[in-house]
């Protein structure tokens, strides 16, 4: 069903809803000519409501405060400022995931809370890298959730990549060790390791993640080359807690945001970029295999802010 709609339209369609929402929020505010403190408060609140996070919202507010006397801001001018701000914050963190490891394989550890979309993202990533002519191998490291291994196996078959699997309930670290060994033996370019979903406040599970990391480093001191944290776009400000703790415990090197084809999203990415400056590698905008796309800050920022050009293109 998704085949007929280009991914860009789907993304923009999704963002359009966000931006329309933001637009609605803002339109209501700017029927008045001057910006009094109440209005500024409400702008700040509207930004928070779009999951942008309090500090980003405060910065936008400050900008508006500085400019209110020079000209009467209409909705579009406000959107412009919001877009500029967001793009400025997002631009430095838009860094794609590149396969540069030597010696091979490049080990990519994929982590996140339960249900954030790790397994699906791995499948999409494997597909993307396979299309770029890299040899990819998967490790089904989620030995905890029922049928998680089966789920990844199905994806591996669809994408056509080999997969290392163990027993359900088995030791994830041991399996990962075996995966790196095999991957190195056959000289695969990329080894993508799935892990069980875990909430960041579960100390025991986070320790296990640290252990997997250590085990990875035993065969190849450089590994894991990437530790990718998968974030669910519907998550609110808790995404920031997730990044902070996963970064500390597992050394997150980059982010992927999934489920951007829903309604409110993107917002917390802006806050995350501002607070942590971690690279955002890609975004997931659908359920089919080629729905993982590079992260384009301009596009995302303008779509979130609802600046006119994007609206025309999506129309």
């Amino acid at each position, binding site marked *: 069903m998704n085949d007929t709609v280009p991914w860009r339209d789907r993304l923009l369609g999704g963002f359009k809803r966000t931006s329309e929402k933001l637009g609605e929020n803002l339109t209501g505010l700017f029927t008045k000519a001057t910006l009094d403190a109440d209005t500024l408060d409400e702008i700040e609140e509207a930004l*928070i409501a779009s999951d942008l996070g309090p500090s980003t919202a405060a910065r936008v507010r400050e900008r508006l405060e500085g400019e209110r006397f020079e000209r009467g801001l209409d909705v579009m001018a406000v959107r412009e400022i919001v877009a500029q701000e967001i793009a400025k914050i997002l631009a430095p963190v838009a860094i794609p995931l590149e396969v540069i490891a030597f010696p091979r394989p490049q080990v990519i550890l994929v982590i996140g809370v339960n249900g954030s979309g790790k397994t699906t993202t791995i499948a999409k990533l494997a597909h993307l890298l396979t299309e770029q002519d890299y040899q990819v191998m998967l490790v089904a490291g989620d030995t905890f959730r029922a049928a998680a291994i089966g789920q990844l196996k199905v994806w591996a078959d669809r994408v056509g990549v080999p997969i290392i699997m163990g027993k359900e309930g088995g030791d994830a670290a041991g399996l990962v060790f075996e995966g790196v060994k095999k991957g190195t033996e056959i000289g695969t370019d990329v080894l993508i390791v799935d892990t069980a979903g875990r*909430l960041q406040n579960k100390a025991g599970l986070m320790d296990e993640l640290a252990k997997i990391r250590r085990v990875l480093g035993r065969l190849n001191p450089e590994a894991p080359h990437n530790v990718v944290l998968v974030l669910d776009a519907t998550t609110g400000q808790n995404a920031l807690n997730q990044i902070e703790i996963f970064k500390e415990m597992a050394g997150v090197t980059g982010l992927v945001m999934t489920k951007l084809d829903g309604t409110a999203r993107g917002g917390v990415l802006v806050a995350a970029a501002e607070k942590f400056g971690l690279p955002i590698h890609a975004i997931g905008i659908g359920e089919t295999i080629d729905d993982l796309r590079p992260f384009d800050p301009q596009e995302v920022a303008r779509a979130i802010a609802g600046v006119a050009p994007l609206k025309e293109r999506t129309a």
Partner: protein
Amino acid sequence: MFESLSERLGGVFDRLRGRGALSEADVRAAMREVRVALLEADVALPVVRSFIDSVTEQAVGGQVLKSVTPGQQVVKIVHDALVNMLGADASELELDVTPPAVIMMVGLQGSGKTTTTAKIAKRLTERGRKKVLMASLDVNRPAAQEQLAVLGTQIDVATLPIVQGQQPVDIARRALQAAKLQGYDVLMLDTAGRLHVDQALMEEMKAVATVAQPAETLLVVDALTGQDAVNVAQSFSEQVSLTGIVLTRMDGDARGGAALSMRAVTGKPIKFAGTGEKLDGLEPFQPSRVAGRILGMGDVVSLVERAAESIKIEDAEALARKMAKGLFDMNDLRGQLQQMQRMGGLGALASMLPGVKQVKQAMASGAADDKVLVRMDAIISSMTPKERTKPELLNAKRKIRVAKGSGTTVQDVNKLLKMHQEMANAMKKIRKMGGIKGLGALLGAKGGLGGMLGGLGGGMGGGGMPQMPSGGGGLPGLPGGGNAPFNMPPGFDKFLKK
């Protein structure tokens, strides 16, 4: 920035309480802070707005500001409004229909539907004595149907045999047929995760609902959800008639937000909270307790319940007998420590108790962790059985041996001995106060739990549980302290401040 909602609100309230007189401006300023706190906790904006409006209106009323303790009044108003927003009473599943009663689970991808389905099925089977059949209608995600089948074997609940390539509506029909023919009480339908903007899948969900005529349609929502929660809740409730909400991942560190929004937006009760990956991690949602937790008033009721679940009856009885004689030795102390660990360790306990700030801070700063309990256990393990029953045997030489054996210092050993001594003294006091019978009376009255903790008069809780034949007992491992709502065991603080 990551302080929890309860800490944020606690700060606001402390400032309010600390003042003798309040002006309207004071109240409004406080409400602004409450508003930001709620927004940061991901409570939906429209919900925050109406909440703040109604609370402010009540709080600036003449009677509040003129009262002797205006701060306290305002806190109470906020508390009541929170409870109101969450819904006053816990609501159960309503399955009183001609069997099979169908429960349909809906929600976004990754919200935790399949796991929740299994958890509810387990609960209904074990506690409700129902015969449950589960069927997965998820034909989109690879291995989703297998996942439910695996969970079914784990919890010993039947699942509908998988027929590859069958469409959801047909699976629903087949499941209904099977449930009727094989005499199941409850049929649980686990639908595919869908985005609320995906009209095709929403239509499919409606078609399934038409076929299955569910008695309960539960929307499964991730407690970590941000502002989008409102859109999700609205879209789903427009498409099917929801009967309740299940909040998952309530064991995460983002408590409050989505829980507060959901009821307000859908008008439907939150029936369950998912609290862990294990299949028994499901609790009925208790609005008043959650409100208490959010407001930093602790959740003593849940704590007592958890204590009751994790206490071994034999242990409790043995301790109760000893206590009746006024005896309390190192073995008993060890039992208490193990008890605390079984209940989830210090962190879990601290999170449920009111006013244990120093412990929470110590935990946060890394000065104390659950290793404290392990270390104390190690010290006791390093004593001879004789020393354990008669701690006064421990002279300087023996202490050095114990310290070496447990990898601690003599100071640590002394601290433990002091703590034991104080606890033993407290035990004696309790005995004089009327022994465990008196404690039992306190615990027996369900409403008097707070009284129980306070009533122990700085002593240790006795070692019983409500189901005990003697009907006596307190809360093992949990001392109550005078006027303070809760104190760690006497001398325990010394372990924390290392």
